[in-house]
């Protein structure tokens, strides 16, 4: 490869980066350049590569989003509360819960659910005379996994709950009573997504066919554009 070809390639790689720099307000640009200069050669090369991905319109929105979030992490050294890079997964929950009441409520709820599930499972296993090993064999998992659930250290997945319910010949709600509430809340969350398109069966299910359609026609709402 000739020198001119190499420099042309280097310029083409730098174009997305330069475009980004031009779009930045002066103060942010200054901070960005400082952060970039403090990086090692490897990180700087990675940042440029991430810019290429973020600007590549042939790639998916998800890929470009991941690339942008990588740049943010690479240029801003945000240590955890111990002063280290990244966050400890267990401590991050504890720390965030102490700062955000909504998360504290959620963590408390999850702990309660897991603890009640462990009590119910223990009780059912006792009444049905099933050992941990037997249950593990029936649901195709390991005995330590059952042990961790009984010790309230493992939150089972929905599919695991179903398998346990089948293995113990009980309704899944006997193990996890508010499972349906969780599913209902999840489905509400799903409908709140911007790109969510309702399927025909869902639309039919929501349509109230018990009442005849009204003959009255309402006035159209004034357009916000007007």
């Amino acid at each position, binding site marked *: 490869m000739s020198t001119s070809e190499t420099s042309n390639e280097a310029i083409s790689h730098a174009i997305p980066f330069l475009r980004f720099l031009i779009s930045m307000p002066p103060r942010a640009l200054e901070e960005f350049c400082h952060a970039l200069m403090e990086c090692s050669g490897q990180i700087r090369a990675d*940042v440029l590569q991430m810019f290429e991905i973020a600007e590549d319109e042939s790639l998916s929105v998800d890929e470009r989003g991941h690339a942008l979030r990588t740049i943010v992490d690479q240029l801003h050294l945000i240590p955890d509360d111990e002063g280290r890079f990244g966050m400890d*997964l267990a401590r991050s929950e504890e720390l965030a819960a102490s700062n955000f009441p909504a998360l504290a409520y959620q963590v408390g709820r999850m702990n309660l659910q897991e603890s009640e599930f462990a009590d119910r499972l223990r009780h059912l296993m006792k009444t049905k005379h099933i050992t941990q090993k037997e249950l593990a064999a029936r649901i195709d*998992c390991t005995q330590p996994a059952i042990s961790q659930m009984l010790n309230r250290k493992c939150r089972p997945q929905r*599919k695991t709950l179903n398998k346990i319910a089948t293995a113990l010949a009980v309704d899944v709600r006997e193990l996890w009573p508010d499972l349906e509430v969780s599913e209902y809340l999840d489905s509400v969350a799903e409908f709140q997504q911007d790109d969510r398109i309702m399927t025909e069966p869902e639309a039919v299910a929501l349509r109230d066919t018990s009442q005849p359609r009204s003959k009255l026609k309402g006035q159209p709402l004034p357009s916000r554009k007007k």
Partner: protein
Amino acid sequence: MEENQETELPVRWSVRISLSAFRDAHAVIPRLAGRARLRRQAWKLQWWNSGDAEVLDVQCRPIPGVPMWEVLVEEGYGFGHGFRVVFVPLEPDGTIWVLCIMKMGEPVTEAMKMIFQARLNAIVERKDVSMENPFGVT
């Protein structure tokens, strides 16, 4: 009943999450409750036995072409059909680093592999640096 005695699994790994992955979680699961539940699933990695295809009740699999693994969480929390937690075990430190949170259907393309590698490079470079004492002066 002797067989019902509970043997505790030893904790094998300290699990840490990169801030990029933390931001991924916010992007793919905008609801706090869903993120909290996903975190509990990723937490299971502390008991992962290197090379195993499962940890407790979640499946793990290696990502072809890179020295990384992914955990398959088969719960959508209202935002998909499930999630993948991409991680890398750093043996000498005994630390598993969560590199990325993806939706179940998201393909691992070449661009994604570059992104994982870039995140891993930052971790390898900075994991031992303490911000309280960045130059390691004692």
